[in-house]
């Protein structure tokens, strides 16, 4: 696998943007879940 072919963007920044996605505005629990998911993924538990 040639990792140089990956698009250049920060996964962490992508998650931070997802945290403020307007889709979650009406449901704080989903936003908490996104935060938990971000921790799970960004900390490398995959």
């Amino acid at each position, binding site marked *: 696998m040639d*990792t140089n072919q990956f*698009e250049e963007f*920060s996964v962490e920044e992508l998650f931070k943007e*997802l945290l403020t996605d307007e889709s979650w505005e009406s449901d704080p629990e989903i936003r908490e*879940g*996104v935060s938990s*998911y971000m921790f*799970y993924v*960004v900390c490398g538990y*995959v």
Partner: protein
Amino acid sequence: MSRIEETQQNIIDASSFKTPEKIPVGADISGWALAYSGVNYEQVIDHPEIYAKTYLKIFDELPLDFTALNYDPIVPFTALNKVGCYDYTLSEDKTGITHRQSDSSYMGPEVYNQIIADPDKFMTDTLLKTKLPSLQGTRDEAYDAVKESAKEYAKYYRASRIMNDYFAENEIYHLVQSRYNYFSPFNLIFDRIRGIKNSLIDIRRIPEKVFAATDALWEREKISLAFDPSDGGDPLPMSVSVYHSECFLSPDLFDRLIWKYFVESIGPTMEAGKKFYLFGEGRLMHLYDKFREFPKGSTIICPDSDDPIEVYNKIGDWATIMTGVPALLLASGTKQECVDYVKRLFDTFGPNGGFIYYTNKELISSKDAKVDNLFATYQMADELSRGRG
């Protein structure tokens, strides 16, 4: 004193070689609990309330003081599927979640240079884009995929919230809830980056690369594990580590790849009075004496494949043995054999502290224990745990 406070005190006393009011009795149960309720993951994963309710049924019925899982979501395999990761899948009977290590895609040996050059970029970018293929395209494509994945993850999160509330209301203590959770950099390479086979070859063919990579990963990781003296003196919540590759390592390699970082990160917590819980995987008899470097009573060992009596003879004067009936016996033995084993454990370990009763392995799926055997062992353990002082 609340029931949870009593359990905490009993764990502290038992692991400090004092006779506790009650020998703590705990269990580590995941998918087996669903099978006990007659369901499987496939049937409940889209319904968090049903998932939590069916999972928790066994905890209404077993006499338990604590559990070790922290009930953050289990491996959210359907959420990972949404970002192209299929490393985790359901077992044949759909009551267990399996890490398909032999089928996973791992990175080549050139990865060591990437880690050494920029461990932060590697961990937060390259590794994630490798393990989650939907992140390899454009940012917009990745955003949409992660958003769908996050919606799926919300189901797991909802279920875990219900489970956490249940354990709080029922005063069942969570053993593992500390931020001092040490997973060695080499285990990361072993488990997720190079895979078991490749990494064990690497430490023989290119050891200096492996050492440099684990050092680089550690420099990044140690910040989050940095010891805070302000909370270091409390015995609980305890520090924790899961041993994974360690059973394959010689003492010298263990010192270089595992112990070196452990002493730096978890060592200060143990010196300060915090308990440390080691969940072993595989045979570790050649390593247990290492814990004599830390104060007596600071270590709690949950042996996996080692005979607990042998572990007790090796280090039972220094560390607490947290164990129970072997999973194999629970799955295939008779009820009498299981009950006799519980009596043997309590008679051998019980009277003067240094013993906590626990599942010998996590009960992951339906065939990990016969229902009658599990109930018989916990009824006996509950009876024997009281008034042993």
